[in-house]
């Protein structure tokens, strides 16, 4: 019985990863989680230069979820390589760097800078709803998605994961465009654009007005999109959106994801990833699946 999964030739010891932006660089959660037990650590988005992010308030709680508009604050790829990567390289886990940018050139600069670093995969965030330029603007139009994917694929030394936005009419169209552009793997979903208003102050709850909705609230949308995408493309999918328990993670695997990322759940249970991992293992055994691959996409009708 094996928990290994394979993403574009990179073997992960198990399918449980962290969702970008919810796990810092890994260092903060290492007090709570043995990083070496995770399939992979996915870092916060990294840009070519330091980004300030948005003013506060940057988050708001919503029913079974939250809105965030961090705005991709990050110290830039240079600091990241010198400070954060060495710590990650010491861990017995795969390292996936999430890459963000305002222009295609920004992305390329980061991707090239990471070429010779100890990074296993690159996750390209073309779906952040919280920045003015770049981010989601790239991720909502199939032609644009194909173009930027191809440009990045050309330069990337590591396999690339394109991270897709759920704020689209037809996720399969976007997914197929990324595949056509040469994506090795797809990550979905990023957050759904949302808004909260403070009715007593009559103002937006977030300084940025809108933010990205994450957490259990969005899980049904995420599962649907993973399922639809799995029917439409041949490359592997990393599923995420509201995963809090092993049952949630298995739901994504059955829907067609090869691996899963745990995001918002880390905030209310720093040990969530490990509990999920253990739950998947027990489930796998109970149902007699020899490998995770056997579970992937196994949902059927009644």
């Amino acid at each position, binding site marked *: 019985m094996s928990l290994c999964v394979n993403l574009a030739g990179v073997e992960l010891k198990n399918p449980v990863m962290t969702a970008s*932006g*919810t*796990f*810092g660089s890994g260092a*903060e*959660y*290492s*007090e*709570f*989680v*043995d990083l070496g037990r995770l399939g992979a650590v996915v870092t*916060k988005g990294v840009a070519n230069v*330091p*980004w*300030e*992010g948005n*003013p*506060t*308030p*940057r*988050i*708001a*709680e919503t*029913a*079974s*979820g*939250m809105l*965030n508009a*961090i705005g991709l*604050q990050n*110290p*830039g790829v240079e*600091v990241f390589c010198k400070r954060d990567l060495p710590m990650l390289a010491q861990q017995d886990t795969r390292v996936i760097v999430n890459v963000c940018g305002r222009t295609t050139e920004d992305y390329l600069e980061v991707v090239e800078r990471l070429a010779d670093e100890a990074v296993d995969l690159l996750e390209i965030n073309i779906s952040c709803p919280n920045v003015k330029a770049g981010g989601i603007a790239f991720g909502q139009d199939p032609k644009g998605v194909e173009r930027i994917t191809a440009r990045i694929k050309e330069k990337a030394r590591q396999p690339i994961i394109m991270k897709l936005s759920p704020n689209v009419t037809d996720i399969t169209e976007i997914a197929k465009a990324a595949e056509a552009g040469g994506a090795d793997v797809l990550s979905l979903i990023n957050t759904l654009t949302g808004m909260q208003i403070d009715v007593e102050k009559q103002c937006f709850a977030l300084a940025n007005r809108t933010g990205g909705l994450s*957490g*259990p609230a969005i899980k049904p949308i995420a599962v649907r999109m993973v399922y639809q995408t799995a029917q439409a493309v041949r490359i592997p999918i990393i599923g995420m959106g509201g995963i809090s328990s092993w049952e949630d993670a298995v739901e994504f695997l059955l829907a067609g994801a090869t691996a899963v990322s745990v995001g*918002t759940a*880390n*905030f*209310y*249970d*720093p*040990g969530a990833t490990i509990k999920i991992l253990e739950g998947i293992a027990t489930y796998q055994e109970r149902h007699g699946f020899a490998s995770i691959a056997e579970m992937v996409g196994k949902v059927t009708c009644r």
Partner: protein
Amino acid sequence: MSRQKTQGKILEQTEISPRIYSMWIRVQDIAREAKAGQFVSLFTGDGSKLLPRPISICEIDREAGKIRLVYRVTGKRTGTAILSEKQAGQYVEIMGPLGNGFPPGRGRRPLLLGGGIGIPPMLQLAKDLKEAAEFEEKTGKEAVTVVAGYRDRLFLTEELSACSRLYLATEDGSVGSKGTILDAVREKGLEGDVIYACGPTPMLQAVQTYARERGILCYLSLEERMACGIGACLACVCGSREVDEHSRVKNKRVCKEGPVFEASEVEWL
């Protein structure tokens, strides 16, 4: 890798003033490590209210392995309302201690300024400072000055006056000085050479200015919305004067580098 969210047993839950609750929680690990000025994350247990509620530690009883939290119920159907309905004997999910506490400021005369729901963390601090002063053989409670500012209804005054020279301010002047804590400081001519302050942002801004103008060392305990509470999500940043070592932009994390900052570090946005 040893830290976790844990279950704390509620030993006592009392409404000590309208909508202000005091809760003693048995939670050995936190009580052992906690310092004045640190905070904990409380979780509501309701599946729709997932984020932590950051609450300052008000008192620490290391021997008994328990801590006291004093918190305000901010409205109906809020997380704090749910927390306030839990009763002694029940459990609450808790994580901590988090953030950095107040630095000792040895040998100085401390002036503690607490406004509203910023008063609770002043209690453990006052107790610690009194003890330190006694150790240095100064006149116990006279060594610590606390000014507590309320809208109208008081709380924690007995506990505070047991370990400090306590001055009160109320908005309507019904008790103590009329106005803010700084009005009380001026009215009573209170002095100190290190200030510790916690309270609403306008109060902290005024205290920052007051300390700067007089060249007094000053520590502010800040508030910001939090998601992770441990420095990972970057939700809770405050503006800092210098480019910060972690962020490489002028953003410090209230949960990690704070919640207590030296006043001169803080740049309001």
